[in-house]
């Protein structure tokens, strides 16, 4: 897993609530047996129509917006457990997703792939959307160590929560398998005692 410490980037506003993982990566693209290539199909049915024409209305296709931060509406990542959604977002180039609420499995999948799910208050999110939409050049600064999200050249700043263990993993690029393997003897002892 890639290490994550700080990031400065513009952001793409995807002002829609309850974005499910079927939208992030439709089921027909789940037939691959490796983790490559999902980025090109991220939000496929929102980015393109059925004939493959670009949907100009969609935020990701709007040339005004760019960057490795996705700002999304409440309850992002609900639905299917498919980790392919996290692979699609990282494959597309996102390193951070900001929302006021993340579905549990998606949140875990994101953290396991070095994609930071950054939860902010509904009020902060609303301000963020309005700012990015009017000033797409706005830079956001994510500092994982300090657990802060700062909007450059403004007074806007917020603290975000993250599980301390997951924070350590992201900063150091560790994954859970390394930790679990270090616990093998305890696991065997647990099995014996049952």
């Amino acid at each position, binding site marked *: 897993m890639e290490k994550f410490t700080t990031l400065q980037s513009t952001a793409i506003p995807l002002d829609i609530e309850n974005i499910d993982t079927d939208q992030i990566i439709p089921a027909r693209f789940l037939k691959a047996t490796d983790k490559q290539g999902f980025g090109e199909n991220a939000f496929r*049915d929102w980015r393109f129509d059925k004939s493959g024409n670009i949907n100009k209305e969609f935020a990701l296709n709007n040339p005004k917006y760019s960057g490795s931060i996705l700002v999304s509406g409440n309850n992002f990542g609900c639905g299917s457990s498919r980790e392919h959604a996290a692979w699609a977002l990282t494959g597309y180039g996102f390193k951070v997703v900001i929302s006021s609420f993340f579905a549990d499995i998606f949140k875990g999948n994101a953290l396991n792939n070095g994609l930071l799910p950054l939860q902010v208050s509904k009020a902060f999110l609303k301000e963020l959307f309005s700012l990015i939409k009017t000033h797409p050049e706005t830079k956001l600064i994510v500092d994982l160590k300090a657990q802060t999200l700062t909007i450059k050249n403004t007074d806007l700043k917020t603290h975000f929560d993250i599980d301390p263990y997951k924070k350590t993993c992201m900063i150091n690029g560790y994954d859970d398998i390394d930790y679990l*393997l270090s616990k093998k003897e305890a696991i065997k002892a647990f099995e014996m005692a049952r």
Partner: protein
Amino acid sequence: MGKTLFDKVWDAHVVDSIENGPQVLYIDKHLIHEVTSPQAFNELEERNIPIFRPNQIVATADHNTPTQNQHLPVKDALSRNQLKQLANNCKKNNITLYGLGHKYNGIVHVMAPELGITQPGMTMVCGDSHTSTHGAFGAIAFGIGTSQVAQVFASQCLLLSKPKSLRVTVNGSLKPGVLPKDVILYIISKIGTNAGTGYFCEYAGNVFENMSMEGRMTVCNMSIEMGARGGMIAPDDTTFAYIKNREFAPKGNDFENKVAYWKTLPTDTDAVFDKEYEFDATDIEPMVTYGTNPGMGIKINAPIPNISDASFEKSLKYMDFKKGDYMLDKAINYVFIGSCTNSRIEDFRVAAKYIKGKQKAPNVTAWLVPGSKQVETQIENEGLKTIFENAGFELRQPGCSACLAMNDDKIPEGEYCVSTSNRNFEGRQGQGARTILASPLVAAATAVEGKIVDITKTFNLEKELI
């Protein structure tokens, strides 16, 4: 303070705890299928890590298997490759696989309970969010991502922070024609799609106590649709009777000893939940969804609500419905009875009771897809196949089918499908498809009438159904 059912099962599986961090939770059963396992197998192979406990893993082929001509090679090359990789990976690692054509093959959440693999007090995981289904037996069962599939492969454990507890209580008598699917669609419509996020849910009250195991599985299956990682129902005599004598259930004295343990699992009377909801069964009617998430459900004879919100309006635009519209009398061209929510024998029995002696409307394509080979056999043995075929329904072979459209069973763009599956997301049943979630009874009635009808009015439910 007393413990909840969830506390009791969770606490019995904690191997270790990280200070201010997650716990190491031991997993009893790991279910796998072709879609979310290949990358996990690859990862272990790349890192040269062996599968730690292959005999606690059970594999099936379900998500992209065809529902016709299963004896022939799978036509779609990518699906065929995924199924082949699953078979190779299982063989290489000594993992039991119920592949296509095997008498135990079926949707992972249908075949594991019917084989007695699912038991109370267990921890169970699968790379599939509807693993919550198995909570119907009083197990902690939840969906995981592929990285976690790899973790369980490597260690039979997961690193997890203990979720908060939620209880949904429904007491009272359900009206005739109100099925378990209606109960869960009603609950989600009331509390919303993220009310359960961060929580594990227990369903309590006499409505669930009186429910069959099939019904309880339908309810627990959709726990993820309100955001909960899983749902649970306390094991009781109904649970024990269901498990007894199944293929992998404990036998003889072992079974009695297990039952004695399982009886200690229900939530203590003085246990406290972090969040509680209570509903009255008499308020529940047959339900349908009108939008693009499972929380957008209404009573079948109610109008679509008037909500001013961009996401809500986007959803109605996709469905081509208007605020204030009624779902009744909407013409429907596709009906799908299947998926891990409603493809068990009970679902086909209730559909057959309605359909018997009637004919499918000519404008409707109706797919009936059993959840497993065993359900398929039951359908034949109980004479339901004849009822369905005489009525013009198409009985297919087991699999996930048109629930998520990974195989050929896709609903065409713009068409409406009344579906017993669990998700009405945009494009879920095929690009541009419009899904209306409902019970198997409402789905059967829709297929016969060619439109959505109020079954409580068109059908003498008490006389004809019970």
